């Protein structure tokens, strides 16, 4: 029983980490219907900016806070540029064109990030504890090992989701965002400025990317591979539904637990290395029952 619980917990934690990346996708999809494939590149770009700024500012009084502030400014500028140069010219285009445009943004950011900040590997240490914790040693043989790093990540993700929920439900901007998500034209007609909303959404997505980048970066080291984490977030996204913040979390938990359990218990029987595709198959299986994801919005087609 011990090992099973351990794998389960590890999976749930990994799932939360995927959710962090998936959240960025959800925010943008919800508010603008754009499937933003550049989210992975944004994670990399934010983390690279942060870690390199920290290096340059290491002799100042508060390198972490300063570089955090500057990175946030960078992400806001990025959001402004994306809105002005990509979204506005492409307004009213089919979703697939917008999706392609975000792939273009992803290429651009990969190139830009590496040419400004370098393509080496950078160690990021923001003081997240790394020593694993051993729990319930008296209950199970060997106890249950929990990575404290993942625990911190889970906490951060929880705070982030709660914050976003409050932001969406309680603030004026949040309500405007939800209105835009429901119907662009109706929102515009009651006086919600669409462009302004997009900038805000991309900024928030950029900040989520920064948080994800810091957590993943302190786990893996900041390097190009961070942008590939987006691929781990996609099954979370389709399972939870593109439009649901809650879905991203629940989806992450299910995917994380599912893939780790399958890898540990099913993997050895068929050669191992299955977690990558298993996550997608799991999501696919859910989709067959709910084609819009667990918490996605049901669209009714009229002819």
């Amino acid at each position, binding site marked *: 029983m011990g090992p099973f619980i351990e794998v389960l917990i590890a999976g749930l934690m990994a799932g939360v980490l995927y959710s962090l990346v998936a959240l960025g996708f959800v925010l943008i999809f919800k508010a603008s219907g754009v*499937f933003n494939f550049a989210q992975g590149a944004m994670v990399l770009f934010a983390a690279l900016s942060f870690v390199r700024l920290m290096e340059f500012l290491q002799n100042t009084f508060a390198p972490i806070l300063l570089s955090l502030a500057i990175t946030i400014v960078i992400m806001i500028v990025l959001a402004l540029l994306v809105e002005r140069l990509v979204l506005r010219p*492409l307004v009213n285009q089919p979703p697939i064109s917008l999706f*392609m*445009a975000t792939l273009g943004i992803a290429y651009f*950011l990969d190139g830009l990030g590496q040419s400004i900040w370098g393509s080496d590997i950078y160690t990021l240490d923001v003081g997240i504890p790394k020593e694993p914790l051993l729990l319930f040693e008296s209950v199970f043989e060997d106890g249950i090992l929990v990575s404290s790093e993942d625990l911190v990540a889970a906490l951060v993700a929880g705070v982030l989701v709660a914050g976003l929920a409050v932001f969406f439900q309680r603030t004026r901007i949040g309500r405007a965002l939800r209105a835009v998500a429901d119907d662009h034209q109706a929102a515009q007609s009651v006086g919600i400025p669409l462009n302004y909303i997009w900038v805000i959404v991309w900024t928030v997505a950029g900040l989520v990317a920064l948080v994800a980048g810091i957590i993943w970066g302190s786990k893996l080291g900041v390097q190009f591979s961070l942008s590939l984490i987006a*691929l781990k977030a996609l099954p979370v996204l389709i399972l939870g539904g593109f439009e649901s913040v809650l879905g991203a979390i629940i989806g992450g938990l299910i995917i994380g637990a599912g893939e780790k359990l399958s890898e540990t218990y099913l993997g050895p029987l068929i050669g191992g290395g299955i977690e990558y595709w298993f996550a997608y198959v799991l999501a*696919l299986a859910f989709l067959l029952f709910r084609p819009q994801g667990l918490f996605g919005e049901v669209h009714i087609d009229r002819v």
Partner: protein
Amino acid sequence: MFYREAGQFKSSYAADQAAFPIAQDRIFIGIWLLIGFVAIPLLSNEYLFRAIFIPFLILALAALGLNLLVGYCGQVSLGTGAFMAVGAYAAYNFWIRIPGLNPLIAFVLAGGVATLVGIVFGIPSLRIKGFYLAVATLAAQFFMDWMFARVGWFTNYTPSGSIAVPPISVFGFEFDSPVRRYMLCLTILVLFAIVAKNIVRGRIGRGWMATRDMDVAAEIIGIRPMYAKLSAFAVSSFFIGVAGALWGFVHLGSWEPLAFDINRSFSILFMVIIGGLGSILGAFLGAAFITVLPLFLNQLPIWLGIEISTAMISHIEFMIFGALIVFFLAVEPLGLARLWQIAKEKLRLWPFPY
């Protein structure tokens, strides 16, 4: 004045229903065929064949296949690399397990296997739509990557799981030189393009387009969505499977599963969208654009005599490539093929607009 259909009268149904009813189009295509079959083989060097033309032709075939699915039937797929891998590995297995098999037959059989796999992975499309489907096709991508790496049978139990194929020879004719390989790819591509052109203007193609534009409406007017969607997956996978077999046998010669990874899927989807959704011409234009542009961007600083580091060149290449994609989408979201169409409309009157 150059592109005018005035004065071209159709006096029979056959003439009216021809694939290219306008004389200028026929001349235009004739010129391209001449360039492809005569001019390029005479004028090119080995580098152009091996590094540009052969990959371009094979990827154009794959893009053509994907365009049938995405552009005509509206089902977005991110699993192109996987279907190419199916084609390549199937061709390898047919070739190794049936002694003396004609490679061309192996390619066709490989396309057949890809068709079956395509239908299986097309089944979710009956329930799932849009980006949900796109991401779901990634399941095919990762599953195939895993399967070809893991199951020894597919690679004939080579210790490392990589594959090496022999030189291609058909009826004792060796496709060894780059020119011959180029001609082989070109011939196959032209044949497939003709097939594609005729499928999309026939009943099946019209069914696909109706499904793409509005599946509920299509169903009401009597198009079976299951038939339309699965047939699109099947035909598209056949094209892509043959392209994969060519990629493995003609272009690479030896490969590992990573040769058909997700980046391959993305680059082919790029070709389709930059070239123009729902356009045969677009698949060619897109493939040319995506194949040549990175190489061009990479070489540009060297031609211009600018001294910058290899790393910087490659980063700038990424940035310009990304920016150009956004730019082209902003200028013409319907792709390069649409630009060609606009050009044709202009050429009707130009240079005497009034």
